[in-house]
């Protein structure tokens, strides 16, 4: 009986990527997969009025500021709804077969198209009913209500951005 020699693979060494910024250390190892879905454009649209970097509100410009999230919850909150959907759909597929998530996703796509123009707030009633959000209250219903947001975008730019013409 052959015995396999013990090999220590260097590839499998676990190394922790930690980025320390002003005393906040975060394990950035898993961030790449989450960042992949959202492409931030560094330096193109700095925060602040008139397009100039607002040093008072966001500190000095640095590429790291704009690429890495500054709060440990930022990415997980942004991706929370898509991740929940993925988990639910894959469970449904395992239990009932491929047709169940396909039908539901078709309904979601149809409901998501019922929207106003980008600079106006749409009620998303059909989408909320499908998701079950009309029967529960969370922080997204109380904090930062988009209908009462203090910032207003320029309508032409927002429509061009949505259509990809910008």
């Amino acid at each position: 009986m052959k015995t396999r020699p013990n090999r220590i693979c260097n590839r499998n060494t676990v190394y922790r990527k930690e980025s320390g910024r002003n005393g906040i250390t975060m394990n950035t190892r898993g961030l790449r997969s989450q960042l992949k879905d959202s492409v931030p454009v560094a330096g193109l649209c700095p925060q602040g009025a008139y397009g100039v970097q607002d040093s008072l509100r966001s500190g000095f410009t640095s590429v790291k500021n704009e690429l890495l999230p500054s709060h440990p919850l930022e990415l997980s909150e942004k991706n929370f709804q898509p991740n929940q959907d993925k988990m639910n759909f894959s469970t449904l597929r395992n239990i009932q077969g491929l047709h169940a998530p396909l039908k539901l996703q078709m309904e979601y796509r149809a409901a998501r198209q019922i929207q106003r123009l980008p600079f106006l707030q749409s009620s998303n009633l059909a989408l909320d009913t499908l998701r079950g959000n009309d029967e529960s209250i969370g922080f997204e219903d109380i904090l930062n209500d988009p209908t009462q947001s203090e910032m207003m975008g320029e309508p032409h730019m927002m429509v061009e951005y949505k259509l990809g013409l910008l």
Partner: protein
Amino acid sequence: MALSNVFETPAAGFNFDNTSRNAALEGLFDGGQTPKPMKTGTTIAGVVFKDGVVLGADTRATSSEVVADKMCAKIHYIAPNIYCCGAGTAADTEKTTDILSSNLTIFSLNSGRNPRVIMAVSILQDMLYRYRGQIGANLILGGVDCTGNHLYTVGPYGSVNKVPYLSMGSGDLAALGILEDGFKHDMELEEAKELVRLAIHAGIMSDLGSGNNIDICVITRQGVDYIRPYQVSEYKDNRKTKYKYRPGTTPVLTEKVVRLKLEVVQESMQRMDTA
């Protein structure tokens, strides 16, 4: 004013825009001067007795070394048969219990049933785990429902414990000593109230973050008895005089009244469509 650099309406929910600014500011202040949130540095306790659940709490809320509120209400209403004591950051416990109470009300309106304690615990667990402990809420939930009398504790990361007697907060070790010594299964109401009172009292005496009065909430199948305060602390400050100013303290030199003349420009009436 329409900003030309805003391409999408901001998403609802938590907004993380200021975190980099806060981190930069903390570096500037060289540690220790940023405003601290109001914590409830507390003693809360709960006990299951024969006919229901007794919850107790002290009433002091601190903001680092200063007592911010001497008569803070730490026992929050969740449902007619479920109440919750909260320790940790005061705003977090209040908001979380408010949201929980709203969700359970929607549920009972939809289904026509009284909510169960385990539902409240599950909702809390999901919500707190989602925010990975950033919401600093240590809660003791107690209630009576069709399956019996229950007492649960939920930690800030969503950990749940189901026990017949509990205490949480900064004074929990002192209170737990009293509870461990005096707890028996199937106690009577007066015994249970006395035990909880002693436990909170021990927490008040041994912990700087707890103090002032003691609140007690008794939940039974027949109803809820929220006694606030159950025991007033004997160290009350007695004000020697009244500090309100009598009218006439400041002398009035002259007085001039100018009437605003308003004229009716246009009057229109619109009927409300109540069809």
